[in-house]
């Protein structure tokens, strides 16, 4: 079942349709409802390696639907702690639950993670409305 459109208040967003859930010095990353809806049913997640450095504004992996491939643009900088193996095995999990079971990676935040200038839910929703 595809998820209903939503943009949780507790998350932070970038304009490339990626979200970050920031908890202390760690963050969980994923793609937004809008991103998964635009792509359609996901069939492949190309994850970064454990321990890889991810840089705010740069690609840390790819997600693919039948028709399209999309770079994952990290909203923050840090080091990969864990890749969501469930999404690697069952990429459609992202369509079903983009903010829950469909998270993509967990990272340890760098000192200058760039988390401060991300969009809040209201700002991201306004951005999506213009797309």
């Amino acid at each position: 079942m595809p998820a209903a459109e939503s943009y949780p208040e507790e998350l932070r967003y970038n304009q490339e349709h990626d979200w970050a859930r920031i908890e202390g010095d760690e963050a969980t990353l994923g793609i937004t409802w809008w991103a998964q809806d635009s792509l359609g049913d996901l069939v492949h997640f190309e994850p970064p390696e454990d321990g890889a450095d991810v840089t705010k504004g740069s690609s840390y992996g790819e997600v693919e639907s039948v028709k399209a491939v999309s770079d994952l643009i990290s909203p923050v900088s840090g080091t990969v702690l864990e890749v969501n193996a469930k999404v690697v095995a069952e990429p459609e999990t992202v369509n079903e639950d983009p903010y829950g079971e469909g998270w993509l990676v967990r990272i340890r935040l760098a000192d200058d993670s760039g988390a401060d200038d991300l969009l809040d839910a209201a700002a991201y929703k306004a951005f999506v409305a213009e797309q």
Partner: protein
Amino acid sequence: MQTLLRTPLYERHVALGARMVPFAGWEMPVQYEGVIPEHRAVREDCGVFDVSHMGRFEFEGPQVPAALQRLLSNDIDKVDVGGAQYTLLTNETGGIIDDLIVYRVEGGRFFLIVNAGNREADFEWIEERGHAGTDLRDKSDEFALLAVQGPRSIERLGLDDAPPFTFAMGEVAGIEVMVNRTGYTGEKGVELMVMAEDAVALWDAVVERGATPCGLGARDTLRLEVCYPLHGNDIGPDTDAISAGLGWVCALDTEFTGVEELRRIKEEGPERKLVAFVMQEPGIPRQGMAIAEGGEVTSGSHSPMLDRGIGMGYVAAEHTEPGTTLTIDVRGKPRRAETVKKPIYTKEA
């Protein structure tokens, strides 16, 4: 600024929530609910596609059979009235201007159904060769075309079974249609040609009978699983039929444009061939990706039935044996694939 053409079913697609995309100058549905469920509907039950963007020519006159024999690769004499044939419009170098289906309506009257993107080029090519005693008309705008495909398609439409590559006039829900036993999915099914003004009523009746609306996305994955070539991807004016594995639609004992070149390629053996492959590692092959053993991917996607990446591409003749390992450059990452015998997907017996 280019104005996109719309089929008579445009409003229906929008009302069904389809995602509309530009395709060969037309604004067409790429998907409704999603490529994967639409693909599965066709493999397991029945789906309906609006393929009204395709070109439809009527070619009539006493000299038409002789003209078609000169223009097309296959042997037109093998097509009886009520019969259809897959064939190629070839150029002087044996390249493929288009792949199409001819339908013989009467002894000297034929319908040609051609690719949307080649409609004008095909028409000009045929016209320029000016065949006395023939009359070529582009009837595309007068008709709509619905492909109804899947194991339950005939039953859902209330039609009788008939052999593939035949056609007859018939009725669906009281609407007069030309029922063509042809398709592009590898499944049993029909393509219904209907007067443009009846298209909406026919679409509604077919959907009412349980056909799942399907977009161009599923059409592409379905045809790729059964290795039907897509003109513009896998075949084109610079690729020849022998290398593309389409020697079976070339009657090399007849005289048609480019036949000498095709005879030579067949005799010498093609340097490269269009092969089908299945990914053995994660990653989805896409058109234009390099194959390390030499060659490139011409079509690639995710196979909903195999749940992995599949594709076709040209490789040197020595790499074409089924079971040969190929290495696909998936955006800088080498990923292993294995060549397979076509088609990639066959229904379990």
